[in-house]
C-alpha cells in the first residue's frame, strides 16, 4: 500500500524532530522545513498532507496555507499549533485546512488528523470542538 507523503513545516527544531519521530515509522516524510519559503519550494515533492505550524518567523502558517491552497486547492493541510482557541480553529478551517491539532496532543491526535485529512475529512483536537463554519 502506498505510504502517505508528509511535508512538515515548523520553525521550532525540537518540535520538528518530535513530529518526525512520531510519524516516520508510518509515513514518508518528504521534507521537514522551518520557514514558508522552503515549504513552497518543497511542494514539488508532491506531499499528500502538509503539517503546518501557525506561528512562524515572517509569514504565519495561515498565510502560507492560503498561498499553498491558491496554487493547488486540493492540498491537504493539518495545522499543528500551541493555540488552543476557537477563533484560530475557525480561521484554520476557513482557509481550507482539514485538521487542527494542538501541540500537547501530538502523540494522540496527529496520526488520526493526518489519516482524516488524507481521506478529505476534518479532525480537530479535543478539547476544542468543531465551530460552526
Amino acid at each position, binding site marked *: 500500500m502506498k505510504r502517505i507523503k508528509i511535508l512538515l513545516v515548523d520553525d*521550532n527544531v525540537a518540535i520538528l524532530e518530535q513530529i518526525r519521530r512520531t510519524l516516520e515509522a508510518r509515513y514518508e516524510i518528504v521534507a521537514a522545513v522551518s520557514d514558508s519559503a522552503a515549504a513552497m519550494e518543497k511542494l514539488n515533492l508532491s506531499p499528500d498532507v502538509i503539517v503546518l505550524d501557525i506561528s512562524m518567523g515572517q509569514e504565519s502558517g495561515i498565510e502560507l496555507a492560503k498561498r499553498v491552497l491558491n496554487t493547488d486547492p486540493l492540498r491537504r493541510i493539518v495545522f499543528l499549533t500551541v493555540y488552543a482557541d476557537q477563533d484560530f480553529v475557525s480561521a484554520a478551517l476557513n482557509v481550507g485546512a482539514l485538521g487542527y491539532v494542538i501541540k500537547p496532543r501530538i502523540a494522540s491526535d496527529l496520526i488520526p488528523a493526518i489519516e482524516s485529512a488524507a481521506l478529505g475529512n476534518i479532525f480537530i483536537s479535543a478539547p476544542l470542538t468543531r465551530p460552526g463554519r
Partner: protein
Amino acid sequence: MLVIATITVLESFAFISLLYLFLRERRRSGSLSDRLKILRTKEETFAHLLAEAQTAQLELGSRMIRAQEEERARLARELHDDINQRLALLANGIERLEMETEQREEFQEQEQLRSLSRLTNEIVTDIQNLSHQLHPAKLRFLGLSAAVRALCNEFSRQHSDIKLEFSAIDIPTDLDEEISLNIFRTIQECLRNIAKHSHAHLVTVALNCNAAYLTVDVSDDGVGFDPVHSAGKGLGLTSIHERLHQIGGTVTISSAVGAPTHIHTGVPVRLKSKMPN
C-alpha cells in the same frame, strides 16, 4: 501795555506747554504701539514654542509606547516560541508514557500521568493567556477585525449587564501591524474606561475601512465626562492621542458630564508588505 505783554507771554507759555504735552503723548502712544508689536511677536513666538513642545511631547510619548510595545512583543514571543513549545514537548512526553502505561494496563501510573498531563496543559494555557495579554497573537495571525471581535466577546463575558454591539466592514486582514496594534490598544482603552467609569448599558464598536482610510467609532450611553479637564486623570486619553499620533491618525472625543460618549478615530490605511509567491 504790561498787561498785554504778560498775556502774550502766558499764551505763549500755554501754547508751548500744550505743544509739549501733545508731542509727549504722541511719543508715548508711539512707544505703546511698538510695545504692543513686540508683545504680539513674543506671543507668537511663545505659541510656536508651545506647539513645538506639545508635538515633541507627543513624539516622546509615541516613542515610549513603541518601545514598551516592542518589549511586550518580545516577552510574548519568548513565552510562546520558547517556553510554551518546550512545555508542549513535555506534555507530549507525558502523553506518550500515559499511552504506554495504558497498553501495559498499569492503571495507577496511568492516572498519575494523566493528572500530570492535565497540569502541564493548564500551564500551557495560562502561559498562552499571559502571552496574549502582553501582545495579542490574534492580531498578528487573524487580523484586526478578529482580534477586536474576540476583545468585544471577552468584554461581554466579563460585563453581562452591558450590551455590546460590534461591527466591522471591509477591514483588510493584512493591515500594517503598527496600525493594527495601536487601533486595538485604543479600543481596549476605551472599553476599559467604559467598564470602569461609564455606567453604560449599551456600547457600540464599529470598524470601517475604504481603500485609503480606516475609522473606528466607540460609543456608549453612559454618564459621560469632561474631555477637556479629564486629560491626565487616568482615562488613558493621553496615550490614545500618542498612539494615534504614532500612526498618523486623529482622534475626536465627544462627551460631557451626563451625556453619551463618542470616540472617533481615523487612520490612513497602510498594508503589510507581501511575501513573493
